[in-house]
């Protein structure tokens, strides 16, 4: 039996889905977290007779007439795939609006069971809902549910009602209204009868007072900046590194145990492949796991409390100036975890150009996989690492604004779109959910390190060990290896950026497979086993050996960091961009733009940084300037061309009118 969960955005469908199936899908306290349908089987404990129930979680919709892309997924699924039973989740705190969809669903002729969710919140507000009367008028079962609770949540009763509805032969096809206007008249009367409210909802509440501060015209931005700063200093400077030290201790021990097991007798090629290639390379990446876990824990709390919708309100004003809307901030904030779900969530943006632009710029927010690169370079080359780390996120935002302006100019599409966003009620974030989210992401990170990263590191190590005649490369001539000879031509391009060394070029390339690879490849090619200083309980400081081994100036290190953050994201994220943009031209343009951006920014950072610190430009200034000039010139030509086009367009319109 197939059961669809349908309801308004942010009424708790995914929370119920997770509770029913034991899955761990992303939830958040704002409208539009789920943008795709998800299917899973119900937990055994809900079906004593072992019936096979498939639960389908759908994106939220206010009605069956779809407004944005993700809403049409819901509509199409219900109309075309005909689930056996629809569980209509109704937000008990917003009965009136929710019943619009409810009556539409009942009229379809598919058995419907209504779950009055968040009933605890309605009770707390002093709202009383006459459930028997509601059920009688709608002619469908209505049940109380609280899917955030572990027990006494009404879910077993709900499933019982669903099974009964699915098995009954008589399908009640009710018709409540001839048109949607009448539908509201019907609903308004129904709600007047069944709902008794203590307080009218248009009264000012404490929540509104909080809104007035956090979404304030001037205070809003500094508050957002402070929140972001706090999240990243906790993960990168305070708690994260502290935990990482303990963790790296275990990896070191493993390394030593394996080293002593192998002893001296084993072939050195095999020993180093296992120790430096596999254990060292994976270990260097895994060492950052605690930082990532702390980051995801903080992000989960932030997403759960209801603050994100307010950030969208604050940012709307600024994003509008560059041709986007406040809705674009949501994908970007999700993108700080991972760019892929961020890019997917651009589906909630209605305007096509805005959606594509947002999908293109979301990867500029440093994702969780880029965190090890940031932490490494900030830690190795800069003492003030919390500052360097957070500034990368703000640099990301600035680059996004700047790029959005350019893209608007290139496309010549100056259309504005209305902004409307539901403001969910604030709530105290659930620690349990944050912990679950943290561990599921930690598990994913370990799997990634043990699969993709491990294979890449092994391959890199082999390519570095052998030359083209498959002879072991002598230690005195590492540049004769296969890897070096492939990476060297590329490294030449990077000379104007300050890191024209083949190891760095190789690491930047493996970064396209997964961004954690940058750290892994550097560890393998420079034979560094861990990036943490055991004695000082911090990331390695600027004076320690890692900085010397890598052989970069601080300015060049910063340029390399910037380069890796602003070049195109990993292949998986590029794939997500492809499916959301639905245009080869946009995808190609996006990748070219990101490459140009990464190169130009790294060039500016290195050359002007070097000028500032040493008094003269760095190596390869002229050559780099030519490349950057070409990039800038082609962008300007594209912008000019579209301005010309636009003028022709407006002329045509004038003639017509």
């Amino acid at each position, binding site marked *: 039996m197939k059961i669809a969960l349908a309801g308004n955005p942010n009424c708790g469908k995914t929370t119920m889905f997770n509770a029913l199936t034991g*899955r*761990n*899908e*992303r939830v958040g306290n704002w409208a539009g977290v789920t943008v*795709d349908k998800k*299917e*899973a*089987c119900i937990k055994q404990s809900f079906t004593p007779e072992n019936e*096979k*129930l*498939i639960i389908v979680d759908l994106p939220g919709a206010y009605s069956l007439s779809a407004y944005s892309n993700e809403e049409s997924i819901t509509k199409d699924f219900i109309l075309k795939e005909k689930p056996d039973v629809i569980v209509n989740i109704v937000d008990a705190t917003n009965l009136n609006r929710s019943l619009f969809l409810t009556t539409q669903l009942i009229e379809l002729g598919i058995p419907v069971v209504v779950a009055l969710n968040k009933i605890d919140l309605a009770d707390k507000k002093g709202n009383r809902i006459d459930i028997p009367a509601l059920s009688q008028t709608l002619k469908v079962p209505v049940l109380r549910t609280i899917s955030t609770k572990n027990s006494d949540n009404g879910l077993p009763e709900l499933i019982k009602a669903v099974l009964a509805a699915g098995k009954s032969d008589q399908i009640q096809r009710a018709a409540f209204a001839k048109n949607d206007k009448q539908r509201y008249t019907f609903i308004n009367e129904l709600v007047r009868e069944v709902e008794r409210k203590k307080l009218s909802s248009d009264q000012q509440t404490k929540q509104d007072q909080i809104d007035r501060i956090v979404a304030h015209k001037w205070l809003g931005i500094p508050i957002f900046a402070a929140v972001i700063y706090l999240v990243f200093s906790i993960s990168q400077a305070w708690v994260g590194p502290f935990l990482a030290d303990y963790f790296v201790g275990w990896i070191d021990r493993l390394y030593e145990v394996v080293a002593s097991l*192998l*002893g001296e*007798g*084993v*072939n050195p090629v*095999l*020993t180093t*492949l*296992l120790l430096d290639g*596999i254990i060292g390379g994976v270990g260097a990446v895994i060492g950052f796991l605690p930082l*990532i876990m702390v980051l*995801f824990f903080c992000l989960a709390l932030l997403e759960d409390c209801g603050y994100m919708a307010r950030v969208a309100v604050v940012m709307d004003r600024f994003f509008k100036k560059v041709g986007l809307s406040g809705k674009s901030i949501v994908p970007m904030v999700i993108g700080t*975890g*991972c760019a*892929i*779900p961020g890019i*997917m969530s651009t589906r909630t943006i209605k305007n096509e150009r805005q959606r594509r632009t947002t999908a293109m710029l979301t990867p500029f927010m440093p*994702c*969780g*996989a880029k965190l090890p690169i940031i932490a490494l370079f900030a830690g190795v080359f800069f003492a003030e690492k919390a500052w360097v780390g957070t500034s990368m996120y703000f640099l990301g935002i600035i680059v996004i604004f700047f790029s959005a302006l350019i893209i608007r100019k290139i496309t010549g599409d100056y259309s504005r779109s209305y902004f409307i966003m539901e403001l969910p009620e604030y709530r105290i974030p659930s620690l349990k959910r944050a912990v679950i*989210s943290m561990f*599921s*992401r930690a598990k*994913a*990170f*370990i*799997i*990634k*390190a*043990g*699969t*993709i990263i*491990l*294979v890449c590191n*092994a391959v890199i190590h082999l390519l570095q060990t052998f030359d083209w005649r498959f002879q072991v490369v002598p230690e005195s001539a590492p540049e004769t290896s296969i890897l070096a000879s492939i990476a060297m031509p590329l490294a030449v391009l990077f000379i104007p950026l300050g890191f024209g060394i083949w190891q760095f070029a190789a690491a930047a390339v493996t970064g396209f497979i*997964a961004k954690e690879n940058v750290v892994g490849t550097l560890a393998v090619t420079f034979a560094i086993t861990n990036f943490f200083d055991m004695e000082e309980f911090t990331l390695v400081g600027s004076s320690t050996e890692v900085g010397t081994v890598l052989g970069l100036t601080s300015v060049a290190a910063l340029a390399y960091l910037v380069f890796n953050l602003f070049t195109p994201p*990993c292949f*998986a994220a590029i*794939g*997500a961009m492809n499916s959301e943009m639905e245009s080869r031209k946009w995808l190609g343009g996006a990748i070219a733009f990101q490459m140009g951006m990464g190169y130009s920014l790294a060039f500016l950072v290195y050359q002007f940084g070097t000028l500032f610190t040493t008094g003269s430009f760095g190596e390869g200034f002229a050559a780099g300037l030519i490349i950057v000039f070409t990039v800038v010139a082609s962008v300007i030509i594209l912008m000019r061309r579209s301005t010309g086009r636009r003028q022709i367009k407006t002329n045509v319109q004038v003639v017509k009118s």
Partner: protein
Amino acid sequence: MSGMDWIVAGVITLIIFLAVSKILKDRKSGVKCTGCSCAGSCDQRATSGNCAE
């Protein structure tokens, strides 16, 4: 190559084999990025009609 060498080579091959087979298995079942930190929100695993797993 000594006996110990073969054992070490075998272990390395096994580790890499396991990693590659996990990646391939995920590809087959529709997981685009193995162990991506999006924690499952980006894979389109369809379990339609089959509750056995």
